[in-house]
């Protein structure tokens, strides 16, 4: 008994310690990966055509799903506030909270999550397949840096595309709330728009843009990191894809909280 207690305490520490060490090692690897991407992004050779292709892939082709998400959410938000907040002056609170809610929080987060689901998974699957079929090795033997050719264009396009999409989603979301308020709740269009304009602050728009850029970085990083580390055939590609999406989701929600707290204190 006298000896089993310290031993069990030690093994408890070991049980906590091993995953902790593994986690720090992983964070270290991701940091090195991100740093390498940043350095290679600013040193030649550059691949503008690859960047353009990725911008289309990540931005343009995500617009339908992002637009639908925004219009549904904006309208639902208006209805919720109207019903939940009717004790107060609805004509002021509905447009105000639709603007706050969409611009500060729902626009960036929903776009981030939608694009993460669509794009981080695609990046991980594509790079993962290239890894397991030795296409990444082939690229190296053909004197092409996989970081500059494949990863930098994806990460850069994702950082650039997300803010643009969030601005579009916010506009569509606010419009969704407006349409519902006008046609279903019988608001006055002119005064709704006037209130909307009053509560649309440039600080909030900036916050949305910053969040979106951070989310874009997370999406590109998680997609490319998990994809390029894939091992073990088709099952490995599946696992990389899942890891990319799940880790992007968690990091997006966590960094959203962090930025919100830091910005609003």
């Amino acid at each position: 008994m006298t000896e089993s207690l310290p031993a069990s305490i030690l093994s408890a520490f070991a049980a906590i310690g091993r995953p902790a060490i593994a986690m720090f090692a992983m964070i270290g690897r991701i940091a090195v990966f991100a740093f390498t991407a940043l350095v290679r992004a600013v040193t030649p050779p550059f691949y503008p055509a690859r960047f353009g292709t990725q911008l289309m892939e990540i931005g343009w082709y995500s617009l339908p799903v992002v637009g639908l998400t925004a219009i549904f959410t904006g309208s639902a938000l208006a209805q919720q506030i109207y019903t939940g907040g009717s004790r107060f002056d609805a004509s002021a609170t509905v447009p105000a909270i639709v603007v706050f809610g969409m611009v500060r929080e729902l626009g960036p987060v929903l776009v981030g999550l939608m694009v993460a689901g669509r794009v981080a998974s695609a990046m991980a699957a594509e790079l993962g397949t290239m890894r397991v079929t030795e296409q990444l090795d082939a690229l190296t033997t053909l004197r092409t840096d996989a970081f500059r050719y494949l990863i930098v264009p994806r990460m850069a396009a994702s950082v650039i595309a997300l803010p643009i999409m969030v601005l579009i989603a916010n506009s569509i979301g606010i419009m969704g709330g407006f349409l519902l308020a006008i046609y279903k709740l019988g608001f006055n269009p002119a005064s709704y728009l006037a209130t909307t304009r009053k509560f649309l602050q440039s600080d909030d728009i900036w916050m949305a843009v910053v969040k979106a850029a951070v989310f874009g970085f997370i999406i590109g990083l998680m997609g490319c990191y998990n994809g390029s580390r894939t091992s073990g055939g088709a099952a490995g590609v599946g696992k990389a894809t899942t890891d990319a999406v799940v880790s992007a989701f968690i990091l997006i929600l966590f960094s959203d909280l962090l930025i919100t707290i830091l910005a609003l204190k």
Partner: protein
Amino acid sequence: MMAVAKGTPKIKLTEVVKRFGDNSVLDGVNLSVEPGESVAIIGGSGTGKSVTLKCILGLLTPDSGSVTVDGEEVVGARSREMSRIRTKFGMLFQGGALFDSMPVWRNVTFGLTQGRMTDAAHMRRVAEENLERVGLSRDILNLRPNELSGGMQKRVALARAIAPRPEIIFFDEPTTGLDPIRADMINDLITSLVEDLGVTALTITHDMVSARKIANRVAMLYNGRIIWHGPRDRLYDSGNPYVDQFVQGRADGPIR
């Protein structure tokens, strides 16, 4: 170009060790390839032949030992040095490793364009010439790799490896999956690259006919080491029981 001292081997591996976790694959490989020489590596499946090539190319890092190319150390080389050394190499991967998002002609010319959209008309002509050397017609220029048969993919990959005219070429099972006539055509191609263009070649093969035809020297990898090497004429009277069993394809013998 750096001057290379006379008598320096093109490629030299000294006591190369490579493990994957508990799986010890290479356990002290020693091999030297002279400039303009063609060496074939034979050995059982999973003995580490492909791993050996990847260690030379710096795609895998040996746990210990030394690999030199023209006298320059590869193990631990900085990435800039490594990419300069890699310009000497062409590599045919065992699985082809064609870029499946690109048409055949862009695959074949990738070593020249590095993925840039330079002068498409010229590049298509270059691709056509190189495809011709591996016995493929220009009809497939615009196809994607997944629209080709396995043997055609292998030959497109071969065309991609030789297109930049490297001074050293690695062939990982160049004739596997080809019919006997096509296989012999590839043997002739490798022979002519070595004899006419002075290329240094290192070929992995399970095809003894091919090994005897293309190689000046054959080396056998077994249990993580080169257990025998000698001129191709000695392949069938090596006096080594492992080599004898392997080249005769017998199930009974020292190799299990």
